[in-house]
């Protein structure tokens, strides 16, 4: 059996983001090690972590853990030139979409914004096509040409020889003067 499927996320997956109440944005400012609570779930802003794998931009992750110290999300704050960007992270246990919007390394504080988004983990809509053909292949033609350098060398020698043959003719011509 040929096992080939195409799986997409249905656009309805965005629905919970636009449900009534989910667009209310909450703001919170936290210091490293601070505890905070969303929808009754206790969380900790453990620390900043600066990533240094891209010299063109500064990326700082805010590490958020649960009460047992398990990392539940790492919202990123990215600075490129004069502009900044924040990635939202979904904290599934707290039903919240959280982003780190500002950082202050001097005071070791960060500003966060979050929305309560219920139902994102349930009824995830998927589109599945089970008649899709694969597309991760190429058809290759490979040919071995033995001795091809004889061809190139030989044909080049033919042309060089023709050019070379001019040398004695030029010498003779320079020494002669005919009249028409």
């Amino acid at each position, binding site marked *: 059996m040929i096992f080939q499927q195409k799986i997409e996320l249905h656009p309805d997956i965005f629905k919970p983001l636009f449900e009534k109440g989910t667009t209310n944005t909450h703001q919170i400012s936290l210091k490293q090690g601070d505890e905070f609570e969303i929808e009754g779930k206790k969380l900790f802003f453990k620390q900043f972590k600066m990533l240094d794998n891209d010299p063109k931009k500064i990326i700082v992750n805010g590490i958020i853990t649960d009460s047992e110290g398990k990392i539940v999300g790492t919202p990123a704050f990215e600075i490129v030139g004069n502009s900044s960007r924040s990635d939202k992270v979904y904290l599934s246990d707290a039903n919240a979409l959280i982003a780190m919007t500002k950082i202050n390394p001097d005071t070791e504080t960060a500003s966060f914004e979050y929305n309560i988004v219920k139902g994102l983990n349930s009824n995830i809509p998927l589109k599945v096509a089970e008649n899709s053909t694969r597309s991760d292949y190429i*058809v290759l033609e490979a040919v071995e040409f033995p001795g091809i350098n004889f061809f190139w060398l030989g*044909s080049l020698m033919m042309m060089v020889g023709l050019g070379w043959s001019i040398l004695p003719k030029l010498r003779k011509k320079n020494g002669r003067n005919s009249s028409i």
Partner: protein
Amino acid sequence: MDQIQYVGEHPIFGLIGHGLIIAAFVSALLATFSYIWSYKYRTDATTSNQWKQLARNSYFIHAFSCISIFVLLLFMMVNSYYEYFYVWSHVNDKLPMQYIFAAFWEGQEGSFLLWILWHSIIGIVMIFKTKEWESLTLPVLCMTQAFLLTMIFGIHIPLGETVSKIGSSPFVLLRDVMDAPIFAKPDYLSVIEGRGMNVLLQNYWMTIHPPILFLGFALCTVPFSYVVGGLISGKHKECLKDVQPWSLIAAAILGLGILLGAAWAYEALSFNGYWAWDPVENMSLVPWLVLVAGLHTNLIANATGRSVKSTYWFYALAFILVLFSTFLTRSGVLGDSSAHAFTEMGLEWQLILFFTAFLAFFTVLYFRKSNSIVDVEKEESIASREFWMFIGSIVLIFASILITFTTSIPVYNKILDFWGGLLNINLVSYHRSAPLDPISHYNKFQLWTAIFIAILSGAAYYLRYKENNFAAKAMGFWIKMGIFAGLSILFSWIATFFIQLPSWQYFLFFGAGLFTFFSNLFYLVKFFRNKPKQAGSVISHMGFGLMLIGIIGSGLNKRFISTNPFTQKGMIADEDLGKNVLLIRDAPMVMSGYEVTYHGDTILQNNRTFNLSFDKLNAKGEKVEHFDLKPNVVYERDFSKVAASNPSTLRTLKKDIYVHIASLPPEEINAEQAKEKEDSLKFNTYTVNSNDTVFAKKIFIKAGKVHFDSQNKNYKPEQGDIAISVDLEVGNMKDDTIFKVSPMVVLRKELLLNFGTQINDLSTKN
């Protein structure tokens, strides 16, 4: 529309261009007639010199005008003056500047200009080098220039309901060629961009191959000019002595141009080799073969006084065949039969006139003047060098006739259609068909040409001109021939252990190549050891021998290594099993002693490059050698379809390994097929909770975490995007295969971007 005051146009350059074309044409005619008068009054030195001075001045104006046309058009292309049709057609803002010259001679007008430019420069050299031949040779060159300049005139003459066209000017305005509503806008230039150069031709070969080839074509005019001069003056001996260096350089440059074309075909185009007997290739080879035949009869004429007439004809035919080749490749007559001929531009009658005028002129001149050629009455000995050199030249001419005959089949059909139209009779049933397999058709005949030429060029060196006592040297001659033949047979036999020589004809072909190589090598060592300047001809003949050996090696022994019929059966069409393999990304495939893996691809502008790794396996299946190859495909500018597949080659001393992409998934070949595939997909919608499982018809899906950060490598985040991806584990219900995937969907303002996931099982066989 004439009332509109257009913004941003540069009409002055077009006017200057047209003016320069007229100046070049008029000065070419003036130079022609002044040179003719200069020769006519040759007995009156003062008058003759006055005419010659006028002719020279005219020629310098002509050359200056031609060079200025070239520079002006180049300037317009560099500065993207899109109001001109030629500039718009061949340049756009994305064209890398290194291809500006290639774009220049991509079109008919530009390539004619390249030819005109070379003629202009050659003419200046001729003025200083041809000395006493100047007044006889320059008129021919000037008339050729005048004809070529008419090709870029761009004059339209109304004839009843039709419009007759003389040439196609590179200085015509876009709005004069196209009728589009945009030209109602005075500032239309601010919203248009050039159509630009064909992406297939954007490579360095296109920059170097045409100039060399056209220089070769232009140099073919010089021997013809001398021949005309020789016939008019009756100074045949002097003519044939002085023309020889020009013929040699013409043959060397034209040959090099053809060779560069072969190298381009091998390296960049998927011709699957260096020579495909394409009509355009053929019609550049034929003038070269005829020119080489002329060179050999020229040598005979210089040494013995024989073959003067044949030399004249061969040099004249070489030039006329260049013009015929121009007609074939530029009239559109080869449109269906050649991959790289120009399309029809309405210049076919002008091109016919071009070559028939020169053919008629030479024929009339020859029959009026050739009675001054004195035939050598005494018959040459069959054991003389000139006899066998002449036979060799005839063989070359015979080969040229065979090639031209088949290549011209579309012309015969056009002639039939023309007469059918005149007589109102349908003559389509009399059409001849071009060979279905041109390579084997031409090889079948040309194999024997090569064998004859190789044997003759190996043996003729050991014969003497004007031989009258061969019997005294016969023993020495035959001993040498016997030794060379013996060595050739021995080495051919040894070669059969390494390459295939499946029939006696190929054995003979290979042996003939070795024979001429050994024979000329011996001659080089024995006679030219201390006279290297005179060794040109033996080097050429040794090269010819090596070339034949290379043809057998790389042509007859060419081997498709992309074959694994057992594994591939069912994956590709049966007829391709012997030459193609289907490679699935990251799944190694064994083929003909190599393990090949396709690792993915990268896209840069219109080029999509595929990363392939090769591991050579020994008899035990161990990897003994590793190399990587990167063939690519070029997409059209709008990515609507694949325009070309370019090979990648591993070069080693003993052999080349050449790979190219024979096919891709249909949806990656063109946009229409991609849409068809997308439309044909039958999607069912399922819902699943995180950490829960849902069952489809053949598979089950377990959902994991939901992410709001970018998980997909093809996704480039933008400010304001909302991107959601979900970790999924997808399993086949009939076995234990589990795939981990993360489809993603992005909301970008009102736009929805879906990064679906294709799951492909590796066990593709039923």
